[in-house]
């Protein structure tokens, strides 16, 4: 796939570039995105907390949560773009990692409820009391510690991705086959988490959260803190991905995307590159899930549904894959459209989403962010032709 924009035009000959240089060189859109993100992260809290209610500029808590949700989605989309756009791994199961991160966070939040649950059991969450369980399952141990839960948020998705990737990449499962087994993976997890015996609340999932680090989740301050944390995580996640794709590692990864066998014959251990990229991407997805859960207040097995994963892929495709900022643009635009359409014309949403899939793949292979450069190139050619004719 053509990706001239990313290929560094000049290889650094002397000192290795600093991370900042790697990020910003020849990359106006990334700078633009990070600036916008910074402005949003600062402005939204001000508009919500400082501007009084009733003022036109006041942002309701609903809008704050909504923008926070979009940013979680954007982080997830960046994670998917990292592997799909730069390594050609189309994962149709990435929300599995997102949901696992969410569940880890949800478990911590459940343990925080303590005696305030319906059954007022100091240790067991309500659904376990309801199922007549006598003690906490082993995998719930330690989840009452914030630091431990945060490690699990990235460790569990990372571990699953590592094991899955190790198996898949080593035996050279590629392309469509990989897509289908990732879909099977998330489908299997969906079925598993629906089971009450799994100990994750079955059908209802985890909900009714009260506190985060001892602070009431309903407080505006906590909501804003979560929002800012999401913004910061998105920024750093983006920065990290940018760093990865611009590093030597990233260039090998792109070589693998363009010609896997050739990269292998040159002597690169293709499976290792893919494996680490995949694992890193899964961890980012887990982080996005963990930020998502306290903001929406629930996590249930529905998050594992294969269709969600495919929807993420379409965000990336709409925005433009292999650019990272395209993924962010796609995630925000598609989700905004979803919010508006499901509210105004609920029946139309699926038509619109379906049409989006078809139109984007047929007519916009580079996505929305690919339209502008394409137009510019066309105009340039036209000008050139005109100039020649004039001569």
């Amino acid at each position, binding site marked *: 796939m053509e990706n001239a924009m990313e290929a560094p035009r000049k290889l650094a000959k002397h000192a290795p570039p600093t991370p900042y240089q790697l990020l910003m060189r020849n990359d106006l859109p990334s700078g633009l995105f990070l600036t916008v993100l910074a402005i949003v992260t600062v402005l939204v809290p001000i508009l919500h907390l400082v501007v009084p209610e009733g003022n036109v500029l006041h942002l309701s808590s609903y809008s704050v949560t909504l923008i926070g949700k979009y940013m979680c989605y954007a982080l997830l989309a960046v994670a998917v773009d990292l592997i799909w756009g730069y390594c050609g791994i189309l994962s149709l199961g990435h929300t599995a990692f997102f949901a696992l991160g969410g569940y880890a966070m949800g478990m911590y939040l459940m343990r925080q409820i303590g005696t305030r649950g319906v059954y007022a059991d100091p240790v067991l969450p309500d659904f376990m009391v309801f199922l007549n369980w006598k003690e906490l399952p082993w995998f719930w141990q330690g989840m009452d510690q914030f630091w431990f839960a945060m490690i699990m948020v990235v460790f569990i998705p990372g571990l699953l991705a590592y094991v899955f990737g190790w198996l898949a990449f080593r035996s050279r499962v590629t392309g469509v086959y990989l897509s289908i087994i990732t879909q099977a993976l998330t489908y299997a997890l969906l079925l598993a988490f629906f089971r009450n015996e799994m100990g994750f609340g079955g059908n209802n999932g985890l909900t009714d959260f009260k506190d985060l680090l001892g602070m009431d989740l309903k407080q505006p301050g906590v909501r804003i803190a979560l929002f800012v944390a999401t913004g910061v995580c998105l920024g750093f996640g983006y920065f990290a991905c940018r760093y990865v794709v611009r590093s030597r590692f990233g260039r090998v990864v792109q070589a693998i995307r363009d010609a896997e066998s050739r990269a292998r014959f040159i002597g690169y251990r293709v499976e290792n590159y893919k494996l680490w990229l995949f694992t890193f991407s899964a961890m980012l997805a887990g982080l996005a899930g963990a930020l998502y859960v306290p903001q929406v207040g629930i996590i249930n097995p529905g998050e594992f549904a294969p269709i969600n994963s495919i929807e993420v892929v379409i965000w990336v495709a709409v925005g433009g894959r292999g650019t990272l900022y395209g993924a962010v643009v796609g995630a925000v635009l598609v989700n905004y459209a979803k919010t508006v359409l499901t509210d105004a014309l609920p029946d139309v949403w699926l038509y619109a989403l379906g049409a989006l*899939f078809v139109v984007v793949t*047929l007519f916009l292979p580079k996505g929305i962010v690919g339209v502008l450069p394409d137009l510019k190139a066309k105009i340039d050619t036209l000008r050139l032709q005109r100039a020649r004719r004039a001569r």
Partner: protein
Amino acid sequence: MKPIRPKLCLRHQLAILCAALGLAAFGASTAKADEAAAAPVEPAVAATTVAPAATNDLAALLAPLANANFAEKEAVAQKVAVSGHPNARPTLAAFLDGKLYARSSDGVVVVAEAVEGGEESLALTDPVTQKSLGTEPAEGLSKIGTNNSLRKSLKNLLAQIALTDPDPAVRLSAVKESMRALDETTVASFRATLAAENDTKVKRAIEVGLALADLESPEADTRLAAVRALDGELAPEVHNRLTTLVTPAEDGTLAEPDERVRLAANAALDNINFWRSVYGAAETMFFGLSLGSVLVLAAIGLAITFGVMGVINMAHGELIMLGAYTAYVMQLLIPDNHGLALLLSVPAAFLVSGAFGVAIERGIVRFLYGRPLETLLATFGLSLILQQLVRSVFSPNNRPVSIPEFMSGVWQVNDALALTYNRLYILVFSLMVFAALVAVLKRTPLGLQVRAVSLNRPMARAMGVRSAFVDAATFGLGAGIAGIAGVALSQLTNVGPNLGQAYIIDSFMVVVFGGVGNLWGTLIGGMSLGVINKLLEPYAGAVLAKILVLVALILFIQRKPRGLFPQKGRAAEGH
């Protein structure tokens, strides 16, 4: 479909099929023998007692019912039963159902039934002639009540009448019915009918009933003979009775004092248990094959589009769904004959889904050849559109597709094995569809062109094959098969907008498991996945079994990325 397959491979597959068929045939034949053995025992009473009273007038017999107490009613019923009147049975049946009334105006006993739409009045029938007597307001009738013991003896009497019915099937079910509660009258009637019985099944059933009765005999030799007669009998009554015979009570006393009888009973029980487990396994196998046949049906169209053309069609599930909805629409068009509607909906669904398939290929897929991931996304979007389309046109709720008579019911092979007809037919149907598809690909010019294009497109074109036409036709064929699968599924599951989604992942799994580009692989893969699923279910539960199969499949693909029967040679590198 792959054209060049090693002969050995085909033979191997045939061998597996033959083995499966052989097993089925064996099961069926033993089953028959057992059924004959299994029959119950009972009402010969009617035959003997009935004849003398035959001349009595039924109407006169019934007349006292209006003011009778329960004991008198029972006596009347007894007389009616032995009257030998041809309409004694429907009359007693109506009595049992509480449909017998006395007309207040003249005291005549009538059968009354609520009429559709009639609020207050009931339709009357003369019990003696079974002819209609018009309608009567409910106030003009008083019900002839029954109580538990009366109903019980009515049932008994009906069973006795049934024992002399000319239809062997009626006699057989009567025997089985009364075998559940053996008493002296039943045994007596069994003995009376046995000699006159000429149907082997009914005869065997009566013998089993008598043997069960003989187990109570004080004579050890009689009991021994009875146990021997019961050997190999699969009816649950026999199993329970023999089990209580050999199991010591809590205080250690034995129900059966004679050791020879106990030994014989143990041996008989072992034999029975063995056969029961065999039939249990056969039943599991059947359910597995049935599930497998559904998987094969759903996946076989995909084996064409994905396997032969290399196109990922995520809208495949929705093409199945369209087929199921075609069955529903056909039923609306021909509301009076569901069987005909179902049969017609097979070709109709093929055309509808096939047309959609051709449209998809011409409109979208052909622009994306060589870009499988993009095809996947575009067709997925299409699947969303089709789902929503069905929701808008038909409503988001499930639509009922009724099952025609020939598809419903159970084939009771014997007491331990029963196969439902709809699953049986769908199993056969999926094999027929498979055979037809193989024939099309192997024996028709179109099939030849399809194989040529999938092997080497430029060369096929150079030989004059219109590859664009072949692409559209192949895709249409795969889509049409999906539609046919939808008709079959409409008989098993709910027809709703999400029908297709439920099968898409399974279908891909089957195709990948069997080996892309190999129709036989799809068949074997689907069937074995179905059987494995059903084998796991008793131990793991339905959901966990499915998860285990999915995980096992994911691991399997790691080991053999090209499936059970991978393509070999140059063709394999094409995809």
